[in-house]
């Protein structure tokens, strides 16, 4: 028990004093996962919307692939990104392995199917006749897609949160392609793994609290927006 209590006490001390190392790790986490989420929004929403609104051969397969992708194991993503970025791999000449950029790439690969899958479901949930109604109101196809995205904004917000939540808490891929280099590619999850293995529970607990805080914040924002929309 002492171990835990001591750990929590020290963790709070680290947080309250804005420990520079904890602070820089947190900042990098936000930077990497935030960028990955933004990029995944672009691919996820555009492809998800296209698949939802069009009919083409092999659509079923595409949908099942997207849905499978939503549960992509981060270590598998880490493995393939590592292979691609390996010095004599296909993209080795970029020399990107063990950089934050590599982590952004890996996390984008993880988050994109999540955003895509939720977008697809959200767009399909809208009544089919709504598209006809929008066209009948004189909209161009582009205007129609934009109005549909606006109509699906609540579930799309959930897509953003799920994507971000997925990558900020992910450890496997980050450690594989980022290398957990101190002051350079060390993020909240990789640091927690390392400190725990070293027996530095106080630091690990502090990092864990920050992660939990993020999870809570994400849900707070989501709930707040959803409730506001309902009440209107």
């Amino acid at each position, binding site marked *: 028990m002492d171990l835990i209590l001591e750990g929590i006490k020290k963790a709070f001390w680290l947080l309250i004093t804005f420990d520079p190392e904890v602070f820089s790790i947190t900042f990098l986490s936000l930077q990497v996962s935030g960028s990955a989420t933004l990029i995944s929004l672009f691919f996820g929403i555009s492809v998800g919307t296209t698949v939802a609104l069009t009919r083409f051969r092999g659509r079923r397969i595409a949908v099942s692939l997207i849905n499978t992708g939503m549960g992509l194991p981060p270590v598998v993503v880490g493995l393939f990104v590592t292979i691609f970025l390996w010095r004599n791999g296909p993209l080795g000449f970029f020399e990107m392995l063990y950089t934050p950029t590599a982590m952004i790439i890996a996390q984008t690969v993880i988050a994109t199917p999540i955003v895509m899958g939720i977008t697809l479901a959200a767009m399909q949930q809208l009544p089919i*006749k709504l598209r*006809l*109604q929008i066209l*009948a*109101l*004189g909209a161009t196809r582009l*205007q129609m897609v934009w*109005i549909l995205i606006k*109509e699906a904004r609540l579930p799309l917000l959930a897509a953003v949160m799920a994507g971000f939540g997925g990558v900020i808490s992910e450890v496997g891929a980050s450690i594989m392609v980022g290398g957990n280099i101190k002051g350079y590619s060390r993020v909240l999850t990789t640091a927690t793994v390392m400190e725990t293995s070293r027996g530095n529970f106080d630091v690990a607990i502090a990092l864990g609290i920050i992660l939990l805080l993020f999870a809570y914040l994400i849900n707070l924002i989501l709930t707040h927006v959803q409730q506001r*929309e309902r009440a209107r």
Partner: protein
Amino acid sequence: MTNDSLNILEVRNIKIKRAGALLVDIPFLQIERGELLSLIGPNGAGKTTLLLALAGLMKPTTGEISFRGQKIGSDYSIFEYRRNLAMVFQEPLLFNTTVLKNVASGLTIRGMEKKQIRQIVKESLERFGIGHLGERSARTLSGGEAQRTSLARAFAIHPEILFLDEPFAALDPPTREALIEDLQAVLQETHTTTIFATHDRAEALRLSDRIGVMNDGSILQIGAPEEVMNHPMNEFVANFVGVETILRGKVIRRDEGSFVTLVSDHEIEAVGDVKLGESVALCIRPENVTLSTVSRSEALRPQGGASGKGRYDYRVGFPPRLQGGASSRLARETTSARNVFHGRITKITPLGFFQRIQLDCGFLLVAYVTRHSVDELSLGEGKDVNASFKATAIHVVRKREK
């Protein structure tokens, strides 16, 4: 431009096929500027599909549609065409925003100036009596309010053609009644050309200049409401426009102008030019059937010139026994109606201002009677009555030879 500009829309040979099935087949259809055409028919008749095609929302497999004499798709792009029309569906399909923004959406899409939009939206909201709902979220509206918003959104565009796809079907009767009344007033004011799909013939009768009856993707009959109602061209149309009694039989006697048809052992006199032995369907509108109660004296009064099977069975006494659904044809001494039958009431269904009475006269006969009459004659299920209808009130449909 080959047509006079009276016709705003013209359809030639459109066929719509989906997954091998022919959903719509319209050889020719013209819609006059300012008219209200109703398309009525059962579910699956192709009304919605035709409406979507006419609104440029579904591409016909073959055929062409012209708007103001210009072919849509070649002379005129579908997108440009759509900007001239508005559509209201059965579901209000409102956007998840305020009523105001919903009604403005068609104008926003057209990139109209905010100030101008505000003015038009205000007018449109007031037209449908929902001026006070502007700031409300569309999600919080009742069914009637939502459909009003949808109509206001459609009219805000000032469409040249308005397409209505069963817009009242999901509303409860009082709400529907009020909305139809308001829509009628708006249409009278704006003279918007309207094509209205419905399965409710009463709605169609009320609003239309013309009615088209659809089944299996075709328009079976199109014309003025009275014409379609009074002269249905076949049994299907008759059934659908509300001729409740349709009796089938063979012509057994004919005279100049009138003839007698044998319908399950009963002779019915009607007017028309038919051949002896021909199969015909006799359509009798329920409002043309008169009921009277059977009085003892009438029942016992001897009849002269008795002949013919099925007549005078009433002599078995009063009340006449209806064996096996058999009834009797009664004397017409007190009425000019050529057809008087004895029957028993099997079912009474209230229909608002009047009641629908189903009779067993040996054949099924339906009559509409006011509530007042029901009370006065103390009509009830199981009661025996005389039913009469004039030979001239029967619409005769000759079976077409194939």
